[in-house]
């Protein structure tokens, strides 16, 4: 014995509801297959409904005058134990007949309004969208020497930045050239990209005189390295939110035409962290420690003639946009070889961006006159733990070196932690 329910069918090719006009049976009545059990009125006509079951009526599930949606059960019938169980083969398995369980009549129910999905279907397997690609000759023909793969906006960008796409290696999913590739090609990093492996030189050695910029760098490095006790600390941080923020800034109208990179966020983060850890933004003289209440932010810049560190004066009073523009200007000036000594003096704290070279982290040497230098490493997709699950996040290592005469371990750690927390959550900058 089981209870069978008869869902209101669509009797007219796409009807969505009907009104129960009159019942011809009542609870307790015995009914047979095809016996008329009620009259319904639809948008098209008045129709008699025949019973699909044989058994005893237990309940009328709708009253006369009710408007019922197609698919809603209208009557419950206690079906005799021996009645054939009528199901569509792919319906879920039903309980055995004598548990008193319900079963629903498998029905070609009309679609009506409720047929529209209210949610997306879940992807059972977490895969990328299925390729609609036409494989064959298209792939065959696209050899690297024949053609350059890049989306139209990237081609436009390359044109604007004066980058020859033929010299750029694409790192996109399909081997195409991405925005980062173009920007990277246009930036100072391209100066040092090893594009080709040179031939073995014919002489056994080459002697380069030590003078000019090279001599100055060497002197400064030695002075810094052997007077200040250098301590380096490192923090790995999930930079995904910073990357998202950078992407949004790039798309924003206000930042159109301005280069926005994670370096900008790092700069802001450092400025913010400096406010909370003032000691890192100071200068050691043998008599006193001068704590600066302004930030002249140095950016290590690679030029063909060597490493220079021009700084952005009063970076702490700049808006995000102004800072972005200042960074861009500084880099361009350095590339052109036009950086002035004034630009390079009175820096209070420095960032060195080794990430553009593809380097994860390092132990940078302090810029003479400063007690802190922060290294921004490459930002790569790595496995990370979020809510106890391993997910793919964009991770970077923030490395920083401090002068231990001024900055103790706890201050150093707090400072680096502050920087890292901004990289992890740029919204902290709203402080």
């Amino acid at each position: 014995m089981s209870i069978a329910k008869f869902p209101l069918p669509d009797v007219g090719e796409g009807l969505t509801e009907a009104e129960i006009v009159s019942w011809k049976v009542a609870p307790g009545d015995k009914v047979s297959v095809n016996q008329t059990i009620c009259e319904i009125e639809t948008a098209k006509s008045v129709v008699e409904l025949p019973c699909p079951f044989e058994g005893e009526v237990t309940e009328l599930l709708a009253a006369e005058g009710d408007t019922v949606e197609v698919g809603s059960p209208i009557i419950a019938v206690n079906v005799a134990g021996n009645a054939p169980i009528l199901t569509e083969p792919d319906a879920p398995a039903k309980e055995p007949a004598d548990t008193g369980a319900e079963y629903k009549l498998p029905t070609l129910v009309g679609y009506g309004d409720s047929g529209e999905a209210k949610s997306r279907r879940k992807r059972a397997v977490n895969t990328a969208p299925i390729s609609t690609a036409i494989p064959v000759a298209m792939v065959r023909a696209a050899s690297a020497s024949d053609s350059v793969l890049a989306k139209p906006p990237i081609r436009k960008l390359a044109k604007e930045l004066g980058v020859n796409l033929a010299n750029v290696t694409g790192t996109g999913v399909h081997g195409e050239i991405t925005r980062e590739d173009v920007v990277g090609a246009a930036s100072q990093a391209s100066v040092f990209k090893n594009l080709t492996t040179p031939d073995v030189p014919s002489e056994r050695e080459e002697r380069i005189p030590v003078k000019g910029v090279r001599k100055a760098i060497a002197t400064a490095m030695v002075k810094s390295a052997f007077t200040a006790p250098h301590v380096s600390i490192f923090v790995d941080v999930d930079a995904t939110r910073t990357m998202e923020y950078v992407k949004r800034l790039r798309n924003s109208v206000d930042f159109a035409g301005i280069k926005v990179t994670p370096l900008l966020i790092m700069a802001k983060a450092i400025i913010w962290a400096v406010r909370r850890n003032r000691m890192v933004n100071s200068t050691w003289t043998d008599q006193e420690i001068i704590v600066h209440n302004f930030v002249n932010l140095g950016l290590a810049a690679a030029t063909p003639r060597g490493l220079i560190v021009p700084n952005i004066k009063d970076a702490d009073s700049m808006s995000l946009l102004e800072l972005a523009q200042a960074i861009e200007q500084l880099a361009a000036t350095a590339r052109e070889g036009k950086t002035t000594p004034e630009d390079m003096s009175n820096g209070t704290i420095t960032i060195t961006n080794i990430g553009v070279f593809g380097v994860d982290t390092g132990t940078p040497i302090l810029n003479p006159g400063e007690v802190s230098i922060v290294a921004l490493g490459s930002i790569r997709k790595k496995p990370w733990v979020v809510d106890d699950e391993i997910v793919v996040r964009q991770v970077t290592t923030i490395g920083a070196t401090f002068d231990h005469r001024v900055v103790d371990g706890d201050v150093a750690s707090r400072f680096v932690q502050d920087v890292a927390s901004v990289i992890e959550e740029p919204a902290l900058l709203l402080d």
Partner: protein
Amino acid sequence: MGKLAFVTPANSEPMLQLLAPDGTYGVPKGYERYGAAIDELDEDKLKTFYRDMARIRRFDLEAIALQRQGQLGLWVPAIGQEGAQIGSGYGVGHNDHIFPSYREHGVAITHGVELMSILKMMRGVNHGGWNPEETRYHLYAIVLGSQVLHAVGYAMGVKLDGKVGNGDLSDDLAVISYMGDGATAEGDVSESLLFAAVNEAPIVFFVQNNQWAISSSVETQTKVPLYKRGQGFGVPGMRVDGNDVLANYAATKIHMDEAREGAGPFLIEALTYRIGAHTTSDDPTKYRDEAEVEYWRQRDPIDRFEIFLRRQGIGDDFFEEVKEAGDALAKDIREQTFALPKPPLEHIFNNVYSDEHPEIERQKAWLRAYEDQMGEHE
């Protein structure tokens, strides 16, 4: 009844009727050769006529119920037309080809087409996948009149094959093309009559005039009685009482034989009535008189034939047996219908072309891959 002047049997249009509504048999003057065709029938054959009429009616009623229970998207009832369909169906020869429209379920069973084949269409499993060559019963055609041209083309092919007029009943064949009164208005039907006539094709056009095309009565579709429709094209015709199974049998047999022998095309109008709705989506109470329907219920083909058979001495046992067979058939149809599975999704792409086609292969593979990675709605 003035409005129905030329469609009731009581008027003056010549019509073949062998079996009156009250069950009396008689051959009218001038129709002797049709009577002769009946004389050749033995009791078994007559019982078969009855059995099949009752069977198809029981099937029809069950199909209506199944639709009302949500098991079929649609059903097209042929209630009231059993005489025309069973009678003409048996008049068709065992080599002949049949081109139905979409209501000739009775004709289908006279040539061994499985009833479930028809139901599969209505359940949305296919568009009618039975084998037309094997059954010689072609697929249902939903664009009215479109199939009549196909029937004519087929008949032209039969003629090209030389299978007409050889007197060889095992090899020669003719074509019968069914349509309703509504379809006769379609241009394709006029073109069919034309092509059939100028090519002297071996074809009989069988018009089941059930007097209603959804809600348009037959006056909307024609100004003259439909048996005259072919005259302008050179296709002679006759009217039979559509509810007289014997008249339908005789007329169809005689004229299919003649077409097979090379007499050219012919048109039979079977004057009957659509007792039921156009389909289960239709409500005839909105456009026709109950009185009219009752008039035609009095002229039911099965009732009058039962009277006739009983007068021949066939008794209760037979009629009981037929009723039980009908109920068993209904139960079987019901169970089979519930068990019909949804076709696999590849079916969307099968048989679009006979030859391989790159787009079809690509899209089929895509849908398979897509469905494989999709779960249920969240």
